[in-house]
């Protein structure tokens, strides 16, 4: 359909709609700033309002916190990315027995049915968080595939408080996403939800029914 | 002595002359000399809104010519003031007399805004205690930013209690030709507005615009409600004039 392309672009150009470009005043975005020490609480407030659960942890004990959570919930397995930073650290600390650590190490086609029906929870890292509204930033990819945070009914995400940015806007700048983006990048602010039936909120409509954030305080 | 022109608007001229008289009296009481050019008719808004700009322009041009002096033009209507102030420049864009019309538009004021912002009037309430509610006209709010002034005037009246509507900023359903082109929707909106007003427990609804008055009063009357909408100028004058 290159004909359509030529015709459309031709029409757009022919209309000669150019002119002085309006200035962009981003002060309203720049005003949104908080000290690093306050961002985690703000993020938490925003995300808890939409049913996200939080577990507190330290840089040293977070694998144990994840483990304790799995034991408590009685997960038979936990899907993880064996080559990701968070995933490999988790695996290194994982004692045998109890919840089985299930690596996402093959193409989805090889275990699609199992992924959809046989996984209790998925564990991923994050590349940052958003203080203003609450939200996690994820960069799915080879080490942590896209469906890990979507298909299992529970998503456990590791967030380091030092990576929390003020706003989505400042995070985009900080992470350099304006110049180059991975195949998939993602903001998640809570478990999947809908209000399509009479404006009544219901959680877990398509994606995870629960989102558990393991918040690692690494600011000091 | 300060001088102003008064522009009645066609609805006030024909349906609400008491409101027009009260507006003039309020201005005079504030020490202003009011000039009422005879021959004024309609601001042209009905034709403008329906897309008949040539016709609107012809009429607008005859109106502008009636107000030659460089003094304020006061209207007891937010909608018509919005038309003359904000839409005349658009209507006359590229016309030979655009500059002249723009100069006229810059002199246009809605009555309550003029009373508060230019004259800083101080009112003394001489009336009995009463509960009122306020219906804001859409064009007054959105074309002129007329939000606070009428309430500031009402607040000056010691015996007047203001009970807000649940949906103060929702359209009453008049919309000029809309009321006859879409009578069912318009009627549904008017009935809701009337019900909202009745639920406030107020004994009078105040507004700035003849269109809203005509519409909501007609609806209230059809419902056999004792409640009525009154133009704010008339209300203010009734309560403050010495008897």
């Amino acid at each position, binding site marked *: 359909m290159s004909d359509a392309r030529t015709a459309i672009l031709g*029409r757009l150009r022919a209309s000669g*709609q150019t002119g002085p470009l309006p200035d962009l005043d981003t002060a309203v975005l720049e005003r949104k700033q908080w000290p690093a020490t306050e961002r985690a609480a703000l993020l938490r407030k925003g995300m808890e309002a939409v049913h996200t659960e939080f577990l507190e942890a330290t840089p040293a004990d977070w694998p144990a916190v994840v483990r304790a959570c799995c034991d408590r919930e009685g997960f038979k397995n936990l899907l993880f990315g064996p080559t990701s930073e968070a995933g490999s650290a988790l695996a290194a600390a994982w004692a045998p027995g109890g919840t089985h650590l299930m690596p996402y190490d093959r193409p989805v086609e090889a275990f699609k049915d199992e992924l959809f029906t046989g996984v209790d929870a998925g564990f991923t890292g994050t590349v940052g968080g958003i203080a203003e509204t609450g939200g996690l930033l994820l960069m799915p990819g080879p080490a942590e595939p896209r469906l890990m945070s979507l298909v299992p009914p529970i998503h456990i995400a590791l967030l380091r408080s030092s990576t929390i940015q003020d706003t989505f806007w400042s995070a985009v700048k900080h992470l350099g996403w304006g110049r180059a983006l991975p195949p998939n990048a993602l903001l998640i602010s809570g478990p999947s939800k*809908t*209000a399509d*039936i009479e404006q009544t909120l219901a959680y877990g409509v398509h994606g995870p029914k629960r989102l558990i954030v393991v918040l690692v305080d690494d600011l000091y | 002595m300060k001088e102003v022109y008064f522009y009645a608007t066609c609805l006030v001229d024909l*349906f609400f002359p008491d409101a027009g008289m009260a507006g003039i009296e309020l201005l005079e009481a504030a020490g202003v000399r009011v000039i009422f050019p*005879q021959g004024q008719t309609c601001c042209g808004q009905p034709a403008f809104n329906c897309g008949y700009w040539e016709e609107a322009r012809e009429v607008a041009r005859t109106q502008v010519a009636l107000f030659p002096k460089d003094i304020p033009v006061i209207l007891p209507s937010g909608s018509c003031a919005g038309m003359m102030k904000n839409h005349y420049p658009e209507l006359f864009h590229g016309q030979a007399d655009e500059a002249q019309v723009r100069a006229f538009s810059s002199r246009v004021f809605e009555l309550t805004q003029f009373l508060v912002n230019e004259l800083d009037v101080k009112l003394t309430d001489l009336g009995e205690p009463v509960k009122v509610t306020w219906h804001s006209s859409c064009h007054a709010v959105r074309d002129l930013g007329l939000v606070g002034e009428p309430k500031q005037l009402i607040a000056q009246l010691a015996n007047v209690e203001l009970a807000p509507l649940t949906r103060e900023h929702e359209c009453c359903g008049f*919309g*000029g030709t809309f009321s006859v082109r879409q009578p069912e929707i318009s009627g549904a909106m008017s009935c809701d507005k009337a019900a909202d007003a009745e639920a406030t427990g107020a004994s009078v609804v105040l507004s700035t615009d003849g269109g809203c008055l005509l519409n909501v009063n*007609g609806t209230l009357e059809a419902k056999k409600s004792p409640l009525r909408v009154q133009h704010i100028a008339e209300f203010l004058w009734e309560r403050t004039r010495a008897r």
Partner: protein
Amino acid sequence: MHADTEIKFRDSAAKALLDPQLRANFRRAMDGLIFKRKAQFPNPRDLEDLRDLSTAIRSRSLLNLPALLEQFETQATKNGIQVHWAETCDQANELILGILRSKGAKTLVKGKSMVSEEMHLNAFLEEHGIEALESDLGEYIIQLDGETPSHIIMPAIHKNKNQIARQFSQKIKDAKYTEDVDELTAMARKVLRQKFLDADAGLSGVNFAVAETGTLCLVENEGNGRMSTHVPPIHIAVMGLEKVVATLEDVAPLYAILTRSATGQAVSTYFNLITAPRGAGEKDGPQEMHLVILDNGRSRIYADPQLQATLRCIRCGACMNHCPVYTRVGGHAYEAVYPGPIGKILTPQTEGVGVRHDLIHGSSLCGACGEVCPVKIPIPEILVRLRREATHEDVGSQVNGKGTGRTATEDWAWRLWALANKRPALYRVITWFATRFGNALPAGAPLIKDWTRTRTKPVPARRSLSERVRAKGVPHV
């Protein structure tokens, strides 16, 4: 797909007004949305600044549109997305059918996309033997009943819980009757999960397309958009050509104002940035990605400096949530893909101002829409412009169907009106008669008849103001 005859908004609206359940559903829902939006903007200055910024970003994007589209195409192609262009909905439908056929795809699972509604894609695919299943819960609900969306963000907003409960119990296999929203949601989840798993292809709309990186941005709460775009082996996205913006930094404020304006959320559950199909080493994601860029009249709208503002729209739905007409009649009365204020300016431009004359006049011009629009589209002004275009044939205007809504009656009415209002003497005679005999007008006279359905007849005062000021001696110079 649309009739050539004038569709009477007035008639369908009148019918909708008689349905108390429908009116209650809409009023309740719109009140909730208005309240929630307001709560998101506690500081009026932040709101206005954010609206200004968003408006500027959309305006800039449009001013640069051809260049941005090309930049986007180059970048997206480099990322491995196959970009297609369609001048019309028919072309877009054929393109998608071609893609699906070439892969032997029989089932398509859809994330929410208003452009696909514009194309009537589902019906087209069904005709050609391909199942197109909506997966957004609201879209799923209306698809079960063969309905169209009544709102661009909340497609099933016209239905209440009981209606949905009844519908599910009848139409979903093995479903029991329940009015519990969690249970209803779980039923849909179960059906749709299997569909995601089995689908040969997924389709989505696009909220923003980023030129610099070739990225498609999708805003959603449910996760069905992510499912539709990441689970099936093929992902096809469709978007109107106006969706492109320069950078991801430009997207941030638009996203911030979109969710707040739409549903009163500070942020959506998911904001999904898709830049490429499954990459080297990736274990999931679609192997193939296509994007269809649709014109369907947009380039014509683009050519007009005033009407171009229509294309700034980010489809938040705030204009309908705040519209006193929409609130009362609901989305279906418009008989258009896009209902409410944005539909009233968009539909006549794409389908013809004469054909949809009814929509152009279905507004009291109260301005509530323009007041809340996050990208400051002057909807009332555009309506007036289109009213003008419908009845006049201006030189240079490219408006679709200009002049075709003109009638001799209306022409004469305005000519007479002008005559009366520019001749003071004549006006004075008319008002004299009106004040003396206005009350004698029969209630059945045209205009009066419509006016008096719900109101008493307006009665002129006994003396006009002009007469009274003359009598009082108010100076006239």
